[in-house]
């Protein structure tokens, strides 16, 4: 009895109540926002929420734990294919499919994490890149199971009847994805404030020092990989519902690299950085996509313009805000506060998880 009382009290720590309050407020704001925008904007909002799940997971691994993964697109594919296979011929509810797909990706992540924990730097990058290149090929090799190049279709989620007949399905998947993204962020936010999060950072900053402090370095790295893979699996599962299809071309090396570029642009090691990165990831291609036909450019130029703009955004972002958008914003706030207080600031814009206010 005393144990359970104690647990209840620990659930109501200031950290958790703050995170829950923020998440709830964000959920309400986003629901209102999504009801005011068009169906296509809802569709993009859902994409942002899905990428937020994948990028927060990757940011935990790369930004917080210091392990670079160029293979998270493949882990998303594990989640997406699990979803598609579970839904093939069965009408399972989303609430069962999401955790099952998450678990599948976490298992693959655990196996791969054990190998990854032995690798450092370019070797780890190479191994995870091999995962990104190799895993989608399985779908083409065993096409009778995975549907080959054409992939497997997923029936879209239909909004419940009480929302009305005119409720766009894009808005419904956006709500689901937003809820999943906020739950993920609350859970990861708490994890990072806990001793587990501190171990992640200790291993990132100095492996030998962490080991001397009694931390099992390899086990910590595997745990980080599993948590991160679970996030990728959840994102992949939602991605399958969102796109209506799981096909190998959707999970190529480009996706893995986009996820890495998103956390770098957004800000390594911070939850809000992952959000900024996901917004860039979805909106830059969406805004530039129609240029090929709307501007009267020669097709050789027009066709490649969206890619060029995306590349330019990456370069400019790295030059202007080397610590990512999140780092840049924190620096701006710090400068503004310093000016307000009339004191000089030595804030460099470095994102420190332990002191998110920046002091």
């Amino acid at each position, binding site marked *: 009895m005393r144990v359970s009382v104690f647990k209840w009290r620990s659930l109501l720590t200031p950290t958790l109540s703050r995170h829950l309050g923020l998440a709830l407020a964000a959920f309400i704001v986003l629901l209102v926002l999504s009801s005011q925008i*068009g*169906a*296509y*904007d809802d*569709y993009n909002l859902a*994409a942002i929420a899905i990428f937020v799940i994948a990028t927060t997971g990757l940011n935990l691994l790369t930004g917080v734990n210091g392990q670079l993964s160029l293979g998270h697109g493949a882990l998303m594919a594990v989640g997406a294919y699990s979803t598609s296979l579970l839904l093939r011929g069965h009408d399972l509810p989303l609430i069962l499919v999401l955790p099952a797909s998450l678990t599948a990706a976490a298992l693959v992540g655990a196996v791969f994490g054990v190998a990854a924990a032995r690798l450092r730097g370019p070797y780890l990058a190479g191994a995870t890149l091999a995962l990104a290149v190799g895993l989608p*090929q399985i779908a*083409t090799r065993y*096409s009778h199971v995975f549907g*080959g*190049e*054409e*992939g497997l*279709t997923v029936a*879209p989620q239909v909004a419940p009847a009480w929302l009305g007949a005119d409720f766009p399905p*894009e808005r419904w998947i956006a709500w689901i994805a937003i809820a999943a993204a906020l739950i993920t962020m609350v859970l990861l936010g708490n994890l990072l404030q806990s001793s587990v999060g501190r171990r992640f950072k200790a291993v990132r900053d100095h492996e030998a020092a962490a080991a001397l402090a009694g931390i099992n370095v390899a086990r910590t790295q595997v745990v980080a990989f599993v948590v991160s893979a679970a996030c990728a699996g959840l994102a992949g599962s939602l*991605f399958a519902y969102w*796109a*209506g*299809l799981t*096909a190998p*071309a*959707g999970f*190529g090396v480009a996706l893995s690299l986009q996820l890495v570029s998103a956390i770098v642009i957004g800000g390594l090691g911070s939850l809000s950085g992952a959000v900024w990165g996901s917004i860039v990831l979805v909106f830059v291609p*969406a805004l530039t*996509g*129609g240029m*090929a*036909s*709307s501007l009267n450019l020669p*097709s050789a130029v*027009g*066709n*490649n313009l*969206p*890619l060029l703009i995306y590349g330019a955004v990456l370069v400019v972002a790295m030059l202007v805000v080397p610590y990512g958008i999140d780092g840049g914003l924190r620096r701006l706030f710090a400068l503004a506060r310093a000016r307000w207080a009339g004191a000089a600031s030595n804030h460099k814009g470095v994102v420190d998880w332990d002191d998110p206010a920046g002091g």
Partner: protein
Amino acid sequence: MNIQINQMTTAMSRIAIGCAVALLAACGQSTSTANTASAPGITASEIKIGSTQPLTGPAAPGYSEIAPAANAYFQYVNAHGGVFGRKITYDYLDDGYNPTTTSSATRKLVLQDKVFAMFNALGTPTHLAVVDYLNTEKVPDLFVASGCNCWNDPSTHPYTFGWQTDYTIEGKILGQYINQSLSGKKVGYFYQNDEFGLDGVKGLDQQLTSVASRQNYVPTNTNVTPQISALQASGAQVVVSFSIPAFTALALLTAAKLHYNPIWVVSNVGSDVPTLTGLLTKFSNGAVGGQLLTGMVTDAYLPLVTDASNPWIALFKHIQPTPWDGNVLYGMAAAYTFVQAIKAAGQNPTRAGLVHALETTKLTGGPGLAPYGYSSSNHLGFLGVQVAKIGADGSATTVGPVYTSSDSGPINQYSGTPATPPSNGIPS
């Protein structure tokens, strides 16, 4: 609907008389009934249609020319008065041949850009990703740029229509040619391991009884030496190839390296001479070029791209002289069929009205060698092909008559005469 069409014909004849001496461009303004915003994407002055195309990525070489060529034809129509005075706006987005991107780009076209219809969206795996969505949203999905017979499914996908001859019919007619003109020779297959190649093989197998060797490839692996060696070892004297241009070129180069000289019978998709000549020169660093194509057998459902005397070729080449190849011809011919279809749907078309018009108006007079197959039970485009042979100078000549067929029915000789385009180049 019939009443509407009758009214329309009366209106049109009235306009025709009224405009007998007037300029064609003025025609649109002098209609007796006003243009209305009759459907999403249709305003008094505009018809907005959309498409997804591989403008970048692995399928871009060649295929990226199709949508600009179609757009060039639409601009030509717009410059000559448009369709009932409306200008066609063609909004084509890049999907990089990635079905996931197709999925989101198609939603952008339908939900945000609010296109009236989809037109000529390219690729089998890519378009399969959105065909259910488009039919749920009841968006006309015209003339998918792929010969998969999956587009001909009026009961599940009433809004989707194919355009080019499907690969199974193509396989059957090529198989018949081999039986008739290359009889007694050992035959081998080389095909892409997906819907495209497998549909073609389905057609071939209906005609050919013994096959010496069946070899397939996946587009991600460019080493075809094992497959070509196996064909050589099997003693195949004829190789039927259902391959995309890059893999036709790789197969020809590999065979040349192995001193293996079978008669190549290549499906329409993988046999465009200008594209292949470029690829052969590029892959061999200039060592060989178009000479490897001499004697190749292929088939066509459109006039031959090298036949400058054909009135269709003259018309399309006049609209866009360069670049000029099979992809440009394809895009312009599909655009011509679209203008035929949208005109058949009347002055103020609706989405359902366009589908109904395609199913009930017997479209004729298009650029195809074979007739269109559109009806309420059939959403196929061209029903057949004509066999052609590539000569030493790279020009093709047709062999024998045009044949038509269906996926399971018999092969029939087509007796109709090819249509010629109207003098202004715009379907009436």
